[in-house]
């Protein structure tokens, strides 16, 4: 346990300092200050359009803030992101994985074995030769997770990875998220599914119309939400 705590503390904390984001005159993210540290599973919750995806894209570096500062306290860690709709290359499942290893300069001789190992781990071994684009939605998302796995990230972002999946596929994705977590990966995941958040969250960050209204441990959040919006959201009443 001690070793794990040390490992988690080695992952640089990420700080948002009065970060805001505007696009074509619309303010999509109000000035926001939050921090992510350790290897907790933080679930970003809130209705559609609250700014969950935006916050993660800013954190991952896919978007630049219009103002404020986003910084890693220490060396920026290895990160990966799993998107709502997985973007897979037009080649076989196996080749999708060897591709990222090639991009990250893994020696050619090691690539195939490591890719097959990842396919095995995510239950995709039988589909190795199949074109990635014809896999089912759940299989595609698992392949995207396997790809992220090969990067061996310290921080994993997931943007509503289960929103288009059936219950069995959702279970597989949640198991994968926990597998990452057990490896000592910090999880930052957006969802609007309350049940999923209850199953996975260590922390909850609640957003509503471009603002972070709450950032608290999951047990506090679900028992006694601080804002009326979060309270309504938990009771399934929030209308947007």
């Amino acid at each position, binding site marked *: 346990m001690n070793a794990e705590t040390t490992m988690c503390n080695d992952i640089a904390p990420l700080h948002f300092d009065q970060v805001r984001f505007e696009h074509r005159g619309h303010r999509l993210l109000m000035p926001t200050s939050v921090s992510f540290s350790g290897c907790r599973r933080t679930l970003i919750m809130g209705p559609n359009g609250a700014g969950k995806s935006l916050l993660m*894209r800013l954190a*991952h570096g*896919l978007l630049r803030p219009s103002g404020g500062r986003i910084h890693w306290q220490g060396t920026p860690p290895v990160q990966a992101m799993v*998107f709502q709709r997985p*973007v897979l290359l037009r*080649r076989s499942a196996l080749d999708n994985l060897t*591709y990222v290893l090639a*991009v990250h300069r893994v020696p050619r001789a090691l690539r195939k074995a490591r890719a097959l190992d990842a396919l095995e781990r995510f239950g995709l071994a039988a589909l190795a030769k199949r*074109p990635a684009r*014809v896999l089912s939605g759940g299989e595609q998302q698992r392949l995207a997770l396997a790809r992220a796995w090969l990067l061996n990230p310290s921080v994993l972002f997931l943007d509503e990875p289960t929103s288009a999946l059936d219950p069995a596929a959702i279970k597989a994705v949640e198991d994968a998220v926990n597998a990452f977590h057990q490896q000592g990966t910090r999880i930052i995941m957006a969802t609007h599914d309350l049940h999923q958040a209850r199953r996975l969250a260590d922390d909850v960050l609640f957003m509503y119309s471009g603002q972070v209204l709450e950032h608290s441990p999951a047990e506090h959040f679900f028992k006694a939400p601080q804002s009326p919006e979060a309270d309504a959201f938990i009771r399934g009443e929030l209308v947007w």
Partner: protein
Amino acid sequence: MAASDNPFYTALTMIMSMDQRLFDIVTLSLQVSLIAVLVASLLALPLGAALALWRFPGRNIVIVMLNALMGLPPVVAGLCVYLLLSRAGPLGHWGLLFTPSAMVVAQVILVLPIIAALTRQQVESLHQEYAEQLHSLGLSPLRMIPTLLWDARFGLLTVVLAGFGRASAEVGAVMIVGGNIDGVTRVMTTSIVLETSKGNLPLALGLGIILLSLVTLINALAHVVSEMAKRRLG
């Protein structure tokens, strides 16, 4: 109408008789156009992809120019190459004028803008889909180029075929820089022009039919290959 006046009959007898001169003309036509398309593709595919990914001042002007060059009249391209390669021209000492190499050069100039401009469009739309994922995986724009070209390959095959269509059909440029010299630079299209001006219309039409059949055959082959690959790769 006598059978010899029928262009289809003429075309068929020419093919059946395996005429050596016809064979040479067809071979040279295909050689010049295929080499031109190959060279143009090697340059234009990475160029188009780079233009899709790289933001720089004046980029829109370059795109408009490239699109405009798709309509470059072959005779103008031929004339420019002629001036470059003629004895008094800057590259005259290469002695390339009135050789198949000069014809290749002229066709590369005609085909390159088509392949580059259409590649830019294809890669740009694919990039919209891939950008976040590739960025997340840590790819530099330079490293994205081969990835996007490979993933756009089915669309790009059509682009290359469009370039081949332009090359194999044009007559103005190869006429000027090649000179339509019998046995040296005479190709299908220049032969058709020559036979037409001589009034030998059945022969001209017969050659036209053979040219069209060859182009159709090559396109059919490319289509079959790409459909097979598509079915295999989804």
